């Protein structure tokens, strides 16, 4: 059979017989399949990126939670430190505030003669008059003699007493129990 000849055909031609589309138009389905493959590939890539992003996000969330927990721990530690610091400041303040009273306590304790005893020593100051120290001494034995000794010791320490009072049934008891109250003021002249 010659390749140039095609076998004859006797059947009637179909009226709606259409010629084949031009070869160049094959680009259309080729592009379609390429775009389909590209879309699937791009979708897969996006899916992979989404998974990666979700994994990164989860890692970041975990890190954030860990940081938050660390922060909470640190805040708690900070609070403990602050509280301790506050207490230390209070102690420091107390220490500083009681520093002037130590001279009074020393003077009072040193003034107690052998055989005499004190049941309590109370010192207090008010915000209105911080220079005035209210003192209350309960003397178990020693009476007014010990009270006089204490007043002299305080005066040696440059403290002036005023509004003195002795609270006891017998205010002239020289040996028994008396309670002595007074207000102490640091002597300005001596300080100068």
């Amino acid at each position: 059979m010659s390749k140039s000849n095609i076998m004859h055909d006797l059947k009637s031609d179909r009226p709606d017989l259409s010629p084949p589309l031009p070869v160049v138009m094959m680009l259309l389905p080729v592009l379609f399949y390429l775009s389909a493959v590209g879309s699937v590939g791009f979708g897969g890539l996006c899916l992979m990126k989404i998974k990666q992003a979700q994994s990164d996000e989860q890692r970041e969330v975990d890190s954030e939670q860990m940081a938050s927990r660390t922060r909470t721990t640190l805040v708690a530690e900070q609070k403990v430190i602050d509280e301790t610091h506050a207490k230390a400041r209070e102690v420091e303040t107390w220490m500083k505030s009681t520093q002037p009273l130590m001279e009074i306590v020393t003077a009072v304790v040193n003034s107690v003669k052998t055989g005499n005893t004190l049941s309590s020593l109370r010192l207090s100051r008010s915000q209105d008059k911080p220079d005035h120290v209210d003192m209350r001494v309960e003397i178990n034995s020693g009476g007014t003699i010990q009270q006089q000794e204490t007043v002299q010791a305080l005066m040696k320490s440059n403290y002036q007493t005023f509004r003195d009072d002795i609270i006891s049934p017998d205010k002239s008891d020289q040996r028994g129990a008396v309670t002595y109250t007074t207000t102490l003021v640091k002597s300005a002249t001596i300080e100068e």
Partner: protein
Amino acid sequence: MTLKDIKDVLTFRAFRPEPDDSTAPWSRRFIRESTLALNIGRRRVSWMALDKRGEFRDAGSMEGDSKEIITQMGPEWRALTDNGWCSVSLNHRFVITLEVNLSRRAGLEMQLRSNPKAVLGAKSERGKKYTLQHNAESNTSVLLSCDEEAVNKTVTMLKDAGLNAGRVSVGVYGMMLDLIEQVSDARRARAATNPGDPFGSVVMIACNEGSVCVLSQREEQWTELRSRSDLYTDDMTPVLDIILPLIQNAGPNTNVVFMNDEAGCPLPDLLRQRIPGALVSDVTVPCQMWKLLTDS
């Protein structure tokens, strides 16, 4: 635009000729698709499947009424194909004649299909399908006429059996055209190598399962043509009776070129016995008829 059009574009089917487009070769119409070739005679039908790789397989034949055979074998034939397409050779109800001085204007072949009367004039008959082959070097033409009813009935019977006729042809006419082309090529080659040498006479014989077509050529002229259908079965004597007068008329040293539907026909040997010294060439190749039907 229908869904089928879109599907055809996406499967690249739209870029190939349609299955029943007679202007396109069979191999271009059915790429990687199993099809069937049928040779339908009055009392015998033979078939051969062409698989996706373009190889012939599952050959068969059956004696009997063609309508009954088609009805009976339809499902089996359909199973041999992918989409039921087949190329048919009608082996009866046709006449091949030698005509002189037919018009050769452009587009005549197409007009012959649609309006044969405009081409053939008084020679045209109602209810006939025509196709022809001109002799390029003389005023003669080989004309095939076939009953339109036979063509249409065959197409309808196949359709009823689930098959689609992608081509309906007359096998022996196609074989004769192939012989004409081979002889023409040989003549051109001879003229090129031995300019001025006479080519002599050639008798071309085409045989296809009982049908015979014989054409006698002297130099470039076609001189005689004989054609018969349902002429022989196993006994080749009726064929010889037709051929021998033409060979004798052609004169001594006539080249006889023979083509059969399948290789192995005894006719060339018979001719050599009957005409000692005859130059008989058998150009038949295996599956000759099936190759012609599928443009292989």
